[in-house]
């Protein structure tokens, strides 16, 4: 035997494995003759001894008892569940059918019946029953959760259907929930205009109370837009033939939009104010009605007749003297007659030929009694 052959057997020789007797004798003879191979054999034997010492040191080690307890508990539970399920399926076919036909809500009852029908004695049976009850509780919980989810979905669907359909019906019937209908307030005696902000005489009183959270615009920008409002007045006059509803011409729309950027409240009133049977109706949260036909429906009775006979300018804010005026929360709309010279005081063009004729106007009085805006009526 040479060193190469010895190397192939050295591990088995050092470990004491069973070897062919001839090979073993040959290896021993080679180790006696070869010093390096003898040294290697000694190293391998030393390693084997060290490894066995190490293995012997750990021979008594084992998994803690808690692992065994967990495994045995899991084993009992899994087999109890499996056996309960088997009993439920084999001993009570009706239960199996009911699980299929009546849904998950019947599962707990069926499992309970089947579990109780297989009455046995002993600790294992008690454990199985406990496991079965846990399963039934889980199944009942799941069934309840599914039923609650379905009910919730149904309620949400009904709610959405109700909320989407109800407003449109109400609006067409002129009783939309978001529209506030307030009784007409008797027009107070308004003092004659002094300067540019106060109405003169009360000639035609058809005022109305209202609510709004908007604030008045700035006086400078409002003054800048008065000329356009006058132009819209003229365009509105040409549209007198179409006054079956509360509407304005295109010029009035543009003037209204321009004015609304600086005075939101007058624009809102001009666009949304509807007189219906002695009530002023506003939609505080909306700028424009969804459909003009809706407003046409709103203009029944005296309001429609009034609108047919009149054309109005946009509201002109009267807040130049009170830059820090409080927000307009409530107020009154008062119909007054003013000397035609009031037009010029507001920067509007004045027809000198009709200078002695009064002009109708609606004055918006705030809750504090201050005139906030004015519009002229023809």
């Amino acid at each position, binding site marked *: 035997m040479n060193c190469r052959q010895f190397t192939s057997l050295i591990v088995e020789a050092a470990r004491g494995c069973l070897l062919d007797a001839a090979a073993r004798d040959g290896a021993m003879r080679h180790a006696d003759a070869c010093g390096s191979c003898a040294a290697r054999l000694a190293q391998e034997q030393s*390693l084997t001894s060290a490894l066995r010492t*190490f293995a012997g040191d*750990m021979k008594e080690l084992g998994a803690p008892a808690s692992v*065994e307890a967990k495994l*045995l508990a*899991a084993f*009992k539970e899994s087999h109890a569940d499996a*056996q309960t399920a088997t009993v439920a399926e084999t001993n009570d076919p009706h239960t199996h059918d009911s699980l299929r036909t009546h849904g998950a809500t019947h599962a707990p009852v069926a499992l309970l019946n089947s579990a109780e029908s297989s009455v046995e004695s002993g600790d294992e049976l008690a454990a199985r029953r406990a496991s079965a009850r846990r399963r039934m509780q889980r199944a009942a919980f799941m069934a309840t959760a599914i039923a609650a989810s379905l009910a919730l979905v149904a309620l949400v669907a009904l709610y959405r259907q109700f909320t989407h359909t109800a407003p449109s019906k109400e609006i067409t019937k002129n009783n939309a929930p978001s529209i506030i209908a307030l009784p007409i307030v008797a027009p107070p005696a308004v003092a004659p205009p002094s300067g540019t902000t106060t109405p003169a005489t009360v000639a035609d009183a058809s005022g109305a109370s209202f609510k709004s959270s908007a604030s008045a615009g700035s006086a400078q920008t409002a003054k800048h837009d008065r000329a356009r409002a006058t132009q819209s007045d003229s365009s509105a006059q040409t549209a007198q033939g179409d006054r079956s509803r509360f509407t304005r011409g295109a010029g009035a729309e543009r003037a209204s939009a321009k004015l609304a950027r600086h005075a939101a409240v007058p624009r809102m009133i001009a666009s949304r104010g509807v007189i219906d049977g002695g009530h002023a109706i506003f939609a505080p949260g909306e700028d424009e009605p969804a459909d003009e036909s809706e407003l046409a429906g709103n203009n029944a009775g005296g309001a429609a007749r009034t609108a047919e006979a009149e054309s109005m300018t946009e509201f002109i804010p009267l807040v130049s003297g009170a830059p820090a005026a409080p927000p307009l929360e409530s107020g009154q709309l008062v119909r007054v007659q003013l000397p035609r010279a009031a037009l010029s005081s507001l920067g509007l063009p004045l027809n000198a030929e009709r200078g002695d004729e009064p002009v109708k106007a609606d004055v918006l009085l705030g809750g504090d009694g201050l005139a906030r805006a004015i519009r002229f009526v023809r």
Partner: protein
Amino acid sequence: MRASPEHSDEELLRLASAGDADAFAALYRRRQAGVYRFALQMCGSEGIAEDVTQEVFMALMRDSRLFDPARGTLASYLYGVARNQVLRRLEKERHFVAMTDETAEDGGAALDSTHLVAADDPLAQLARNELIGTVRQAVLALPAHYREVVVLCELHELSYAEAAVALGCAVGTVRSRLHRGRALLVERLREVRQQQDAGAATDFDPLRCFA
């Protein structure tokens, strides 16, 4: 039929599959130590070894049909499952760096409670503990594919064929890996011994000797 120590592993497994808790308990008590020690020697962590042991027997409980007696013994099968679990955990924890462990620095077994018991020959016990710690570190330092062969064949005394079944490789592969693993161990132990000798020589300070 009640489980008894005379039953073979396969019989106990069959009884356990039928729901016999005693058979399962007997099988567990017979095989848990080997699985636990294998996991501990492979990864060096008692926590991982416990988890691996639990997982191995849970897998056996879930689906015992995966064990094929024609391919090898149940012990080999359990070692194979444990080996897969250990390698999976080692791969998972490969990205973590272990905190400094004083017991590991001292050779691992220095503070083991079993070694605090006074021995008849304290010096021999100390040398033995030192040897065991050195071997443990050397085994844990081996690459995994060499380590598992060394652990199974040397520490658990499995035959090449049983180890081949557990590791899912050929007998020749087991043999060659064992040769290579042992060579690495010899080299490692020699290095450790040289370091210890050099350290002992450095630590010796004649000026401190007042004798």
